[in-house]
C-alpha cells in the first residue's frame, strides 16, 4: 500500500498533476524562530512550530524537537501564519489590459439584473502565473472576486488557497460585493438617490423571497432575477458577508444604517477613506474595514478625508482592520501594513491586518489566519520583520508542505542574470 502511494506520487509529479498535498505531507519542525502566532498566545521570542499531517500540531517554546520531524532551522528568523490577501482577483486576472478575458470583470447578462448572481468559483484559473508569484512572497490564501461589473453588485467572491493544484477553493460563495461610492453612483442611475433605492430594493426582495418558490414555473417579477435573489437571500440572512465599498463619511453612515433595515446582515466596509471620521460608529456596529492605508489623496470629492492615519485611528477606536487590496501586487500588502505602522498602527495590529483579521472577516479563522493546533499548516519563515521592505519570505509552507520557492519572474531573472551569449536566450532554461 505504501509502495503504491509512492508510485502514485511519482506518477503525479512526473505528469505534472496536482496532488492533494496533505495526504503525503511529512512531519515538519520549524525551529528557533520568533513566532508571531496571531492567536491569544501572542509572540514567542524563540519557539518551534510542529507540523503533522498538513496541520499545525503544536507551537512550543524553545528549540527541542521530538524525533521524527524534518527540521527547518529558523533561528534568528521570524515566523508568521501564511498571509491572507484580503481583497484580490487572484486566479481571475492574468494580464489586466488588452490581453483577453479578465474573469474579474463582467458584462451584463440576462441571468442577472443586479450582478448578485455572478459567482467566481467557476472562473478560477489554478495555473495563473500570478499565484506562484504571490505565494513565494508569503501569501497562502486570499479572498478573490470581481472588481468591475456593469451592475450594482460585483457578485459572489470565494476564499482560495494559493497551494499548487486544482482544489484551491476553501470557501465558495464567501462574500458579496457592492460599491456605493462616486463611481458606483455614476453607473447606477447617475446619483446616490437612484443607487441606494436600487440597493435597498434588491435586499428587500431577498427578504421578501424567504420561503418563496423560485422555480422557473412560478412568476417572479422582482427588480432582481431569480438567481440574484437566491444569492442575496444569503446576504440578508447574514450567511454571506456584504462587502461595501464606500469612502465619504455620509456614505459610510448609510452603510451602517443597512443594519437597522436588515438586522442579520453581516457588513464589511471596503476602502473607507473617511472611515476614521466615523470610527466610533463603525466600532459600535462591529463593522470591520478592508483598506489600503497608503490611500491619502482625494481622488474625488468623496475622499477628502483620506489620510495615512486611517488604519491607526480605526484601530484605536476598536474597529477591526484588514490590509490588502490588489491583485498582481497584493504581495505589497506587507509594505502597506508597514506604512500603516509607520503612521501609528501598532506592529501587532499590522500583522493581524494581514492574517487573523481577514480570516475572521471571511469566516475561515477556524482554518487559517493564526498558528494554532489543528489549523492548516500555512506558515512562512521570514528573513526578518515581514513589514520591512528589505525583508522577504524565505520559505513558505502550505498544508504543511514546503512550497517550491520559484515563479515565472524568478526564472526570467535567472535566465538573464546567467545569459549565455553564445546561443539565443530561448535555449537557457533556469
Amino acid at each position, binding site marked *: 500500500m505504501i509502495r503504491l502511494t509512492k508510485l502514485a506520487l511519482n506518477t503525479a509529479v512526473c505528469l505534472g498533476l496536482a496532488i492533494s498535498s496533505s495526504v503525503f505531507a511529512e512531519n515538519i519542525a520549524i525551529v528557533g524562530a520568533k513566532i508571531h502566532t496571531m492567536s491569544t498566545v501572542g509572540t514567542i521570542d524563540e519557539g518551534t512550530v510542529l507540523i503533522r499531517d498538513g496541520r499545525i500540531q503544536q507551537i512550543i517554546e524553545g528549540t527541542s524537537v521530538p524525533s521524527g520531524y524534518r527540521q527547518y532551522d529558523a533561528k534568528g528568523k521570524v515566523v508568521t501564519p501564511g498571509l491572507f490577501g484580503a481583497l484580490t482577483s487572484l486566479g481571475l486576472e492574468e*494580464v489586466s489590459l*488588452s490581453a483577453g478575458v479578465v474573469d474579474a470583470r463582467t458584462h451584463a447578462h440576462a441571468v442577472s439584473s443586479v450582478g448578485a448572481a455572478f459567482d467566481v468559483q467557476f472562473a478560477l484559473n489554478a495555473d495563473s502565473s500570478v499565484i506562484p508569484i504571490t505565494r513565494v512572497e508569503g501569501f497562502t490564501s486570499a479572498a478573490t472576486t470581481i472588481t468591475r461589473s456593469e451592475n450594482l453588485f460585483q457578485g459572489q467572491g470565494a476564499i482560495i488557497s494559493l497551494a499548487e493544484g486544482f482544489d484551491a477553493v476553501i470557501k465558495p460563495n464567501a462574500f458579496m460585493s457592492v460599491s456605493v461610492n462616486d463611481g458606483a453612483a455614476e453607473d447606477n442611475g447617475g446619483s446616490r438617490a437612484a443607487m441606494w433605492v436600487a440597493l435597498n430594493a434588491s435586499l428587500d426582495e431577498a427578504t421578501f423571497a424567504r420561503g418563496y418558490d423560485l422555480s422557473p414555473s412560478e412568476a417572479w417579477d422582482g427588480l432582481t432575477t431569480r438567481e440574484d435573489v437566491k444569492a442575496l437571500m444569503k446576504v440578508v440572512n447574514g450567511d454571506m458577508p456584504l462587502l461595501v465599498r464606500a469612502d465619504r463619511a455620509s456614505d459610510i453612515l448609510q452603510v451602517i444604517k443597512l443594519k437597522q433595515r436588515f438586522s442579520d446582515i453581516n457588513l464589511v466596509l471596503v476602502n473607507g477613506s473617511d472611515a476614521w471620521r466615523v470610527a466610533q460608529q463603525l466600532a459600535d456596529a462591529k463593522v470591520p474595514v478592508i483598506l489600503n492605508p497608503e490611500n491619502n*489623496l482625494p481622488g474625488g470629492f468623496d475622499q*477628502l478625508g483620506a489620510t495615512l492615519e486611517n488604519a491607526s485611528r480605526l484601530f484605536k477606536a476598536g474597529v477591526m482592520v484588514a490590509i490588502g487590496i490588489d491583485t498582481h501586487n497584493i504581495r505589497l500588502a506587507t509594505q502597506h501594513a508597514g506604512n500603516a505602522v*509607520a503612521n501609528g498602527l501598532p506592529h501587532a495590529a499590522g500583522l493581524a491586518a494581514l492574517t487573523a483579521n481577514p480570516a475572521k472577516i471571511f469566516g475561515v479563522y477556524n482554518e487559517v489566519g493564526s498558528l494554532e493546533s489543528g489549523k492548516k499548516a500555512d506558515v512562512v519563515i521570514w528573513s526578518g520583520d515581514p*513589514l520591512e521592505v528589505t525583508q522577504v519570505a524565505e520559505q513558505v509552507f502550505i498544508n504543511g508542505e514546503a512550497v517550491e520557492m520559484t515563479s515565472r519572474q524568478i526564472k*526570467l*531573472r535567472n535566465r*538573464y542574470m546567467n545569459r549565455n551569449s553564445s546561443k539565443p536566450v530561448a535555449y537557457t532554461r533556469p
Partner: protein
Amino acid sequence: MSNLKQQKLALAVVVASVFLGACSDNKEDAKAQTNGPNKDPFPSTYQAVKSKPVVITNVTILDGIGNKIEEGDILLENGIITELGNSVSAPRDAIKIDGTGKWVTPGIIDNHSHLGVYPSPSTRSHSDGNEMTAPVTAEVWAEHSIWPQDPGFQRALAGGVTSLQILPGSANLFGGRSVVVKNLPNRTIQDMKFPEAPYGIKMACGENPKRVYGSKGGPMTRMANVAGYRAAWIDAQEYQQKWATYNSELDAGGSPKAPKRDLNLETLAGVLDGEILVHMHCYRADEMVVMMDVMKEFNYQIGTFHHAVEAYKIADKLAENNVCSAMWADWYGFKMEAYDGIRENAPMVHAANACAIIHSDSDIGIQRLNQEAAKAWSDGQRAGIDISQADAWQWLSANPAKSLGIFDQTGSLEEGKNADVVLWSADPFSTYSQAEKVFIDGALVYDRTDPESWPVSDFELGQIAAGDAK
C-alpha cells in the same frame, strides 16, 4: 552669433554633458536669439524661500554619488550646500539640528510624474495629460496643463521629493513637452519651474499609441508606431534645414523671410539640436533596441527609457548607448508589455554599468520612492548583486538629475549645489523611516514635527481635514 552656430554650440555642450540652459540671462545671448523664436516664452519665476543657515550635525550622510559619512555634519547656507564632512564650521546664527540616529540624503527627484496634469481630485475637468487627438503632438507643453493646487505636490514633499519632471501621458508617439519643477508649488506653474532646466519631450512605444489610434486612423500596429516616429523626424530635419538656410542667408547680409513657425516641428527640431531631452515610455526590450536604432538613424540621443520593464534583458545595450532606464521596483502584469517585470530590474541595469533610475508614475508611489529603491536594492542583494546603499541612492537623485539635465545644480550633496536635502528619521531603506525635514534651496519647507507649518493647497483649504496628517 548665428542661431545655427548657437544650436551647434548647445549640442556640443550637451554632448560634453554640461547642460546649457535653454533660457539665459546673459544679455548677449538674449540679443543673439532674436534671429529665431524665443526659446523661453514662459520663463521661470521660481524664488527660493529665504532662510538662515542650517547645520545638521552627527548624522549619517549618503551624498548620493556613492559615499557614506558616519556621524557627519552638513551646512546649508544661502540656498546651497557650503560644507559637508566629519565636521563643518557653522556660522553662529545657523539653525542647529541634532541629527543623531538620523540620516541625510539629497532630495529625491522623480523623473516621471503626472502631478498637476492628472491631479487630485481626478475629475474629468482635470484630466489634462493626454492630447489624444493625433499621434504626433509635440506642440503641446505639459506646463500649460499643470494645476499647481494639486495636493499631490504636498504629499510628495512629505516623502522627500524636492524636484520632479511632469510629463504628458503616453497615448501619443510624441506626447508633448515635459517640464522640470521644484516641488514648491505657489500661485502659478512658472513659480515652480526649475530655473535653467532643459525641456524634455515625451515619446511612447508600444501598446498605448496603437490602442488609442488603432480605430482613429492609426497607428494600429507597432510597425506603424515606428513609421510614425521616422516620418516625424524627417519633417523635423526639413524644418531644421529651413531655419538653417534662413540663418545663413541672414548671416550673409541678406534679408530672407523667416520661415513660419511650427510649434510641433520646433520641438522636434529642438531634439535634433540636442536642446530638448528625450524621455521615452518603452517597456519591451526589443522595442527599446529598435528605438536606439531610430535614434542613430536620425542622430539624436534618447536620454531615458521610462518604465523599461524589460531593461534587464538588454542592460548591456543600454549601457553601450548611454541611455538611462527609469523603472518601478515591482510593478508588472497590468498589460502584456509589463508581463515580464521582475524585482531585480534596477540592480541588474546598475550592475551592467547602465544608468538606473527609480521613478514613480504615481501620486502614491512618489510619496515613498526611498522604499521603492530599498526593495530593488535588497532584491538585488539577495540575487547576488552587491550594491552599497550609498551607490543605490544614485537611483533616486543623481541619475534622475542627470536624466533631466539638472545634475550640475542638484541631485547630490556636494559643495556649491542647491541645498535640496532630506533629513530622515532613520535609515531610509526602512519602511518605518520617514522624511522628517525637507529642505529646498536651503529652506525648511516641510517639517513633520511641526504640524502647524505643513503646506495646504488651495483645494484642500477649508475642506474637511485640511492640514491633517496626510
